[in-house]
């Protein structure tokens, strides 16, 4: 992770007007579509509960189910590998690819291979990784970074993609600004032609996995474009890298997730391509199948009872699409494969709270993510817990205890311990504000509070706090003592 903080990266991103329009347009469209698709199912809430319960059960017995999966995959002719961390995963996958003496591997869209930074490792080993998912391909061609879990190139519009194709698809001799328009079907057809030759002459395919069924040893990839299906049928060798949490116990459990996932992610009743494969079958598809099971911090997340639900995520990306922060900053501000609300809780857990501390603060806790999540992950509570862990860490250092926020929080605690102190400080602040308040407003606050007044006025403290008014009212004969007045002063005055 870079040295910059979320607020710094967001500050930059907010000025990228093209990105902001692209992301807003795309998320608004997907948001409406997913809401419609979820809304039309009478048992949507029951499905969410079922999805959540299935995941909770799976996590509770993950060790047993993983062994069952290993056994079934092996029985069906596949090979299973265990990767403790990203480094080990890279070594396994690069090694397996090398065995087949190829200088190229085609890839199905996979978050997990991004997480372990597989592509640079393949390139270093002399193997060219070719992303075949349209959006991933756009990101790869542009030397760009993914900015969305489902739509990695969501920050690009079709005009930008046209320019990129003409510039970067060098082996497509007939491609020029004269021959290619920014019409989406035309762009897609061009991508298809570009990819077709690669599909046909590459021997090794690498994928992630949406689900793996323990009882059958089947692995599943769910997609829209069909490039995954190409990777699953043409090459001789299939290598799938899967996070250990992607497991589900039974075949029947797919019933729940194959309804939840497309409706929550692309806003479709059913996704165009659902591929399921079990080991190898002679004369049909890849003849060698490797399943690499990745931990990379997941078992540590599993150990925490509250944060464990982070592993329930089925990577639908709906939380990104409904998040008001994501909609404005886009994905790059999160500086991770996993962006948006799920990224804000997953990245700090994968990398350590210290490295990714500002991510947990990249939320207003508005709750839109939790409300939208198809498996009901309580993202706001986990954000709060992560903030708490950061505070605890900070407190272990003397300098951390003296940090401005920590001091402010201690002062507030001291003040709220006794109402007399609160009252005293109210009076003190009322005196102090005379230097900066004008006409009931403060337009410039000192220090960190200046972040507020850079764009917003602050109301000045009124002459009388509520408790002072109340105390005066309790005194017989004092102003305001009579009860039940009608048109009282407050209702006609502006409060802000």
């Amino acid at each position, binding site marked *: 992770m870079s040295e910059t903080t*979320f607020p710094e990266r*967001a500050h930059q991103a*907010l000025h990228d007007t093209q990105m902001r329009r692209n992301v807003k347009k795309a998320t608004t469209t997907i948001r409406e579509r997913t809401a419609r698709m979820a809304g039309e199912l009478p048992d949507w809430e029951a499905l969410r509960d079922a999805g959540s319960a299935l995941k909770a059960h799976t996590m509770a017995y993950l060790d047993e189910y993983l062994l069952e999966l290993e056994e079934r995959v092996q029985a069906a002719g596949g090979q299973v590998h265990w990767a403790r961390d990203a480094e080990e995963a890279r070594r396994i996958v690069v090694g397996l690819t090398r065995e087949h003496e190829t200088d190229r591997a085609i890839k199905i869209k996979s978050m997990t291979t991004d997480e372990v930074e597989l592509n640079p490792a393949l390139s270093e080993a002399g193997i060219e990784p070719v992303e075949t998912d349209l959006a991933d391909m756009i990101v790869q061609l542009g030397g760009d970074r993914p900015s969305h879990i489902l739509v990695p190139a969501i920050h690009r519009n079709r005009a930008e993609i046209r320019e990129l194709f003409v510039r970067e698809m060098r082996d497509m001799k007939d491609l020029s600004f004269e021959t290619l328009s920014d019409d989406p079907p035309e762009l897609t057809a061009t991508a298809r032609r570009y990819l077709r030759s690669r599909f046909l002459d590459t021997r090794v395919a690498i994928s992630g996995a949406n689900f793996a069924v323990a009882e059958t040893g089947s692995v599943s990839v769910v997609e829209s474009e069909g490039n995954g299906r190409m990777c699953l049928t043409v090459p001789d060798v299939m290598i799938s890298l899967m996070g250990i949490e992607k497991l589900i116990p039974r075949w029947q459990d797919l019933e729940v997730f194959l309804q939840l996932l497309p409706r929550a992610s692309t806003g479709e009743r059913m996704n165009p391509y659902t591929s399921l494969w079990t080991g190898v079958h002679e004369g049909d598809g890849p003849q060698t199948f490797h399943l690499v099971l990745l931990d990379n911090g997941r078992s540590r997340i599993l150990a925490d009872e509250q944060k464990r639900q982070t592993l329930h995520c089925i990577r639908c990306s709906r939380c990104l699409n409904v998040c*008001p*922060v994501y909609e*404005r900053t886009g994905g790059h501000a999160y500086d991770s494969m996993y962006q948006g609300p799920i990224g804000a809780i997953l990245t700090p857990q994968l990398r350590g709270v210290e490295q990714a501390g500002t991510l947990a*603060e*990249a*939320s*207003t*806790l*508005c*709750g*839109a993510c*939790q*409300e939208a999540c198809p498996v009901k992950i309580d993202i706001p509570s986990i954000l*709060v817990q*992560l903030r708490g*862990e*950061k*505070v*605890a860490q900070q407190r272990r250092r003397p300098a951390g205890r003296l940090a401005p*926020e920590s001091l402010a*929080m*201690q002062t*507030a*605690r001291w*003040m*709220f311990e*006794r*109402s007399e102190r*609160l009252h005293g400080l*109210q009076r003190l*602040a009322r005196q102090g504000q005379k230097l900066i308040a004008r006409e009931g*407003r403060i337009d410039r606050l000192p220090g960190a509070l200046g*972040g*507020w007044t850079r*764009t*917003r*006025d602050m*109301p000045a*403290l*009124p002459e009388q*706090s*509520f*408790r*002072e*008014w*109340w*105390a005066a009212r309790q005194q017989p004969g004092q102003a305001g003592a009579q*009860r*039940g*007045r*009608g*048109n009282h002063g*407050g*209702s006609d005055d*502006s*409060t*802000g």
Partner: protein
Amino acid sequence: MRVALFITCFNDTLFPDTGRAVVTVLERLGHEVDFPMAQTCCGQMHHNSGYRDEALGLVRRFVEQFESAEVVVIPSTSCTAMVRQHYPRLAREAGDESLVARLEALLPRVYEFAEFLTGRLGVTDVGAYYPHRVTYHASCTSLRALGLGEAPRRLLENVAGLEFVELPRIEECCGFGGTFAIKNADVSTAMLSDKMAAILATGAEVCTAGDNSCLMHIGGGLSRQQTGVRTVHLAEILASTEPGSQAAGGVRS
């Protein structure tokens, strides 16, 4: 009914008019209001910022102050959500079984202001008069944590003279988020810009809500931009009556 008012530190300090308005409305409806003077803060800021131990102290304080009350009314959706949603968990995580039990006994008697009027009292017309064009911002806690639904709107619709206009994209957060507004001031402002645009598009003169923290943020932006639109807490609209009317006993229902 004898109503204990939890004013919240924020309203106490910055928006006393909201508290006075709550007292006015409740007394107009024939209830007695009590204000336990030792009350301070619900602990929301500490909790949301990760200062759990500090928040826990304030949970205990709230319980001590209010557990003998017949009912507790809070004119803030986010503070009510803090009490209802997070207090039990904080108590459980602290392993304080007695606090858990005391909360279980107390929480069913704790209401957000609009919720108390429509849900507990069954009143939607409080005899208010407010001749202004008004739009309503549903705070995130009102929508999601408390599920207040149509309650605030029904109260507004029954205010004489009030012209109600729906706010587009009402489910979207205004960008306040407590310390978020300062730590992520730029993103907070970007969200505020869109919220202000939505409010201005309604042509309303007043934007109301059940939470002064959202309103301080929205109102601060509207004021800075000289938009000519102001923010007013729902309670203040409901407290407002026709000049010269016999409001004290004159509740229309």
